[in-house]
Structure formats: structure tokens, C-alpha cells
């Protein structure tokens, strides 16, 4: 992606998404100031078409921005809002102000009621995209105001997820154009996971260099070095996989199978990444005061948001087993690689 854009977004988040701000918002503080700063920066419209007043970035161009949202544990759904604003603008819908969350598939969907559980950032979103479940919305996705929902906290410490349900949800705006919300949400979550892993890696390497036992920094012990190498490998694989998941098909449509790869790889890696980071930090990493937990709690949550590794691997496996291609190689190349643009 454009390095100037990437660096300026990195600097912005360094300034506004500080550990203090993250802790404040996680404990129920208002998001208004943070969101105002984001709105003024213009990044919420990074993916809105240029003719509609945005920067017109595609999913692939915006990968670095999603990555940075994760690296800075940004406590508002900016990545999701960027996607939502792009799709709403494409559908000629007036874009509302404020953070927009993307719900996983609703657990209940009738004429009278829509029930969504564990919506990432559901506790603070002002609007929610609800991908269609079954008949009542006639296969259409909805944009629903959070203010019209019954909102229940999950009760998980520090989590920004919430359960939301809407009675008589006809107040929602129908999004006519079909869009693979679940797959795109999975891909951008994978990118944020890779970003969070990057911070976890840097934090853990730094700690291993500072903490001394037996008369030398613990990072000098081979046992610790091997663990950190695995962490670095997994963070790298997750990042490359997430970037792969953000590559559209030549038609411009989302490559849903690549998105599946991205989320499966990052979700599988996250468990080991978290475990190594906490293992190296020992008790210090578990404290509220130390920043590691801001990232590892998110990784733990994100690895099952929008489907775990098992769900997405199964999707890829179904495609592999139903392919006519005579070999795995001939399946993989067109499925994942044919449409990647040269650098």
C-alpha cells in the first residue's frame, strides 16, 4: 500500500489510540473524542469511492490500515466502518455518522425479531450491519440503528462485544446489493489479528531483553529464543495470509476463499502466539497494568469472531474436495494467486 498513507495512519493511531485511551474506553468511557479525531482525519472514508467523496481504496489497498488498527488495538470498529461506509455509498444509502459494527450471522431472524449475539464492538457501535439470515428480509442485509436495539453486555471483562436484538426490525435500511459481509469481516479481522501479533512480538522480544534471571537477560537462553522464533514465524505467516485474504478477484469481487485462508491461518496462529507471549512474560504479562493484555485479550476474542480456524478450514476443504482440478497445485493457483497484482 501507499507508504505515505500507511505512515500517516500509523502516526495518527500512535497519538490517539494510546493504552490510556484503550483502557478508558474498555471500562465504559465515551468514544466521542476518539471517533471525532478519526472523523476529522478522513480515514473512515478511505474506502468510499472517490466520486462519493472518499479516497477510493480497495480492500487490498486498505490492508495496511486494518493491520495498523490491530497493531494499535484501536478500541473502535474503524476497519468495519470503512467497509460499511464503502458499501452503503455504493448502494446510494446516506451514510450515518458514528462507528458501524458488522454482526456475525444472526442467531434468530423472524418478521418480528432479529437477534444477534457477540457482535464485535457491539457495545459502542451506533449502527450495525446485520447480514441476512433467512426468509424475512428476503435475502437482504440490513443497516440497523443500535439505539433501537435491546443491548445486553456479554459480561466478559474489558470486552467490547455485546448481544443486540431488535423487535419489529422494519426500521432498518435494506442494503439491496449483495455483499459477502461475513467473509470480508473475517479477512479484516485476520489483518487486525496480524497487527496485534506484531505488537505482541515486539513487546515480548523487548521484555526478554530487559528481564534478567540467572545473571543474564532471559532472551539469551536458547529455550526462550526458540519460542520467540516460533512467535515471529506465526506473526509473519498470519500477516502474509491476511494480506492474501484482502486480495480481490480480477472482477473486483471479494475472493471469499482467500478470506477463508486468512482467517483460518491467523486464528490458528493466535492461540500459540498468545501462549508464547504470556509464557515468556510470566506473571507480569497477566497484570492489568502491563500493556500486553490489551492485545492478547483481543487476539483471544478475535480468533473465534466471524468463525474460528475450524469453520474456515472446513469451507476451504469443501472447495478442495469438490474441485475438478487434478492436483492441489492446480486448485490453489487459480483459487488464490491468479488475481494478485504485481508490486
Amino acid at each position: 500500500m501507499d507508504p505515505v498513507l500507511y505512515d500517516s495512519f500509523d502516526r495518527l493511531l500512535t497519538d490517539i489510540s494510546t493504552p490510556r485511551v484503550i483502557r478508558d474506553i474498555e471500562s465504559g468511557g465515551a468514544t466521542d473524542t476518539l471517533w471525532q479525531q478519526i472523523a476529522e482525519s478522513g480515514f473512515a472514508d478511505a474506502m468510499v469511492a472517490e466520486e462519493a467523496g472518499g479516497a477510493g481504496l480497495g480492500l487490498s489497498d486498505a490492508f495496511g490500515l486494518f493491520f495498523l488498527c490491530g497493531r494499535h488495538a484501536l478500541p473502535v470498529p474503524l476497519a468495519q466502518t470503512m467497509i460499511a461506509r464503502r458499501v452503503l455509498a455504493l448502494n446510494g444509502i446516506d451514510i450515518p455518522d458514528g462507528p458501524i459494527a458488522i454482526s456475525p450471522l444472526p442467531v434468530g431472524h423472524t418478521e418480528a425479531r432479529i437477534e444477534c449475539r457477540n457482535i464485535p464492538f457491539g457495545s459502542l457501535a451506533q449502527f450495525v450491519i446485520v447480514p441476512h439470515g433467512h426468509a424475512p428480509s428476503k435475502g437482504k442485509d440490513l443497516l440497523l440503528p443500535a439505539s433501537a436495539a435491546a443491548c445486553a453486555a456479554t459480561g466478559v471483562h474489558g470486552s467490547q462485544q455485546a448481544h443486540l436484538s431488535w423487535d419489529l426490525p422494519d426500521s432498518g435500511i435494506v442494503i439491496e446489493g449483495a455483499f459477502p459481509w461475513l467473509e470480508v469481516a473475517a479477512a479484516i479481522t485476520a489483518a487486525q489479528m496480524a497487527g496485534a501479533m506484531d505488537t505482541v512480538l515486539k513487546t515480548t522480544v523487548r521484555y526478554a531483553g530487559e528481564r534478567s534471571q540467572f545473571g543474564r537477560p532471559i532472551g539469551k537462553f536458547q529455550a526462550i529464543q526458540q519460542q520467540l522464533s516460533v512467535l515471529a514465524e506465526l506473526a509473519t505467516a498470519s500477516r502474509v495470509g491476511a494480506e492474501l485474504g484482502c486480495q480481490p478477484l480480477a472482477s473486483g469481487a471479494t475472493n471469499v476463499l482467500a478470506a477463508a485462508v486468512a482467517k483460518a491461518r491467523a486464528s490458528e496462529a493466535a492461540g500459540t502466539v498468545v501462549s508464547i507471549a504470556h509464557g515468556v512474560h510470566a506473571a507480569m504479562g497477566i497484570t492489568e497494568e502491563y500493556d500486553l493484555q490489551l492485545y492478547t485479550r483481543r487476539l483471544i476474542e478475535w480468533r473465534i469472531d466471524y468463525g474460528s480456524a475450524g469453520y474456515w478450514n472446513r469451507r476451504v476443504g469443501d472447495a478442495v474436495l469438490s474441485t475438478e482440478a487434478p492436483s492441489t497445485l492446480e486448485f490453489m493457483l487459480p483459487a488464490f494467486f491468479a488475481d494478485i497484482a504485481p508490486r
Partner: protein
Amino acid sequence: MIEPLSLTSIPPHAEALRPAVRDFVRTYTSRVPLEQRAHSWMGFDADFSRALAKRGWVGVTLPKAYGGAGLDAFSRFVLIEELLGNSTPVAAHWIADRQSGPLILKFGTEAQKDFYLPRICRAEAFFCIGMSEPQSGSDLASVRTRATKTGSGWKLNGQKIWTTNAHRSHYMIALVRTSGSSEDRHKGLSQMIVDLSAPGVRVRQIRDLTGDAHFNEVFFEDVELGEDALVGAEGSGWDQVTAELAFERSGPERFYSAISLFDVWLAYLREHHSADAWARELAGRIVTHLAVLRAMSVAVTEQLARGNSPVLEAALVKDLGTELEQYIPFAISEELGRHPGHHVPDGLLRALAYVTQICPTYSLRGGTREILRGMVARGLGLR
């Protein structure tokens, strides 16, 4: 610090090579059972290598003046991806193509290039690499095999071990000590080309647990070498060996080694409609990992094509890639064993047994897991 690997694609000029290679490979794969192909790049077939050479596909990165095709790292990636992705027997020319040819091109004299490179490209000169010794494995700098100066060249004494395909190769490029002792470590090491038919060279095969004999002990007793046996500068052996490693560690051979077993298992599942949810998830997991590894490998290839030496990034790809290669046979046997009543064909079972037995070598050859992770740790600034 390790540079982030950025996704990139294979440029069109390199992709243009793929259809012809694929056609060529199909004529081979149509007559060789998959079971046999499970040997992947350890499969040795001199006729296959010479047929490839006739097409101009051995030594493709070497300049045309030396019989090569003058193609770049991306083109070689496409070529070997098709060869390995379809499990063809490339072992005969593999080392010469991947390492010895490029090494001679980079460090060799004009006479060495004129002599060896055209022979490599015609698949007439097969090479092996003499690195390990009985007392030097991961601690490669401790090698003791010694070349001493004579009036007309060098006299070689010592022993190499675990030398893959030495018994079927024409030449070895050996890392030997030309000055100092093993306490001098990286100093005083040089690379020598040894004609394996020379008097004083004795090759003894070592049988492996699968019943094959692919690696060897090689003994040198007063072997007379000419002055032109030395490759590159005397005493620069260590640096030259290190430069080779990025080529050795990041390619498709680090994640496609078990692909024919995976393909034959998928074919079995499809044919018998016997893929339950667990098997589907497993098949997906393997493809998910392969796709990411391939993307990483292409990213490393891009750095090679630009003339960089991404040694750390290559180590990282190899460690992850061999982990998957070793996971595949164990996961497949677990899956097959979940259905005791099913009739599994012998060919699949033999391929499975072979890969399961041999796969520990995947993370030994080209640097052990622990050595690679040590390199990554160095890249992280920990060492």
C-alpha cells in the same frame, strides 16, 4: 530485524513458462504411479533429468552463453513448482540446478564456468554437496576434511557423511579446511570441486529406514586435486556456503514434499465419497497452510530476484514449511485410522508409510529446526 514479507505475484514473463512445463509433466505423471512419485524431489531418474535438459529446463537461471536459459528466480520458481507440485523425480540434477551451478557462476573462474555449466545444463554433470562429517553436523564450521597445497594443486584427506546421492553424482562441492584447525572455526575454510571418479575417493551407501539408500559416506584418501578445484577465494568457503543457503531454504521444495501423498488421499476421499466433516476440515487446513507458505515463498523469491540475500526470511519459511510437510502424513494416517472398516488401497498405504518414515529428514536437510530458529532469533536481535 526481520523485514516484513509483502505479498507479491509472479510476473507474467515467468508465468508464461508454466503451460509448457505442465504439459511436459503430464506426459510423465500419466505413466508413473503416484505411489512412486511420493519420493518427490528425492526421486532420482537421470533420464527424466536429461529429458528436462533437452527442453532447456536444467540450469535455467544460468546465462545462455553457458548453455542456460538466462531466466530469473521467478521463472525457476514456476518451473520447479510445477515439477515438485506434481512430484516428479528431480533429484539427479537438483543440487547442480539449485546450488552448484549458481555457485560456480558467482565465484568460479572463467575456465570452471566454461567446463561445468554447460554440462550441468545438459544434465550430464550431477552434483552433490559435501558438508556434514562424522563430527560436524549443525556445527559445520568444525569440519576437519583437509586440502593441503601441493606443487600442482591440492591433496584431499578426510571424510564426509550423509551426502545425498554421492553414489550417483559426478562431482561433489565439498567444504574443506585449507588452513588452520577446527578451532579456527569459520576461518580457513574453502570450497573444492571433487571429481568423484578420481583415485582415492570411496563412496559407501548408507541404507535408510525405508529400505532406500540415498545418502552416503564419502572417504578421501590422498585424492589429488588440480589447482582449479578451488571454487572462489581460498578461505572464503564459509561466506560462500552462507550465501547459498537463502536459495536452499525458501523454495517450493520446503512445502510440497508431501503433496503427492495429499493428492492421492484427496482422490481416495473423492472417489469413495468418504470425506466426513473432520476430513474436510483437515483437507482445508492443509490447503490453508500451503497457500500461505506459497505466498511467503514467492515473497522471498522476489527478494532473491532483486539480488538480496533474505537468509532469515528463508529460514522462517523453511521452518514453517517443513512443519506442514511433516504434519501431512501423520494427519492423513490419523484420518484413515478413524474408519477401521474402510478398504484403503495398498498404493495409498505404501505412499503414506514411506512419507511418514522419511519425513523427519525434511527438517534436517538444509539446517535443523533448532539452527533455523536460532537464526530467526538472531534476526530478532536476541543473539
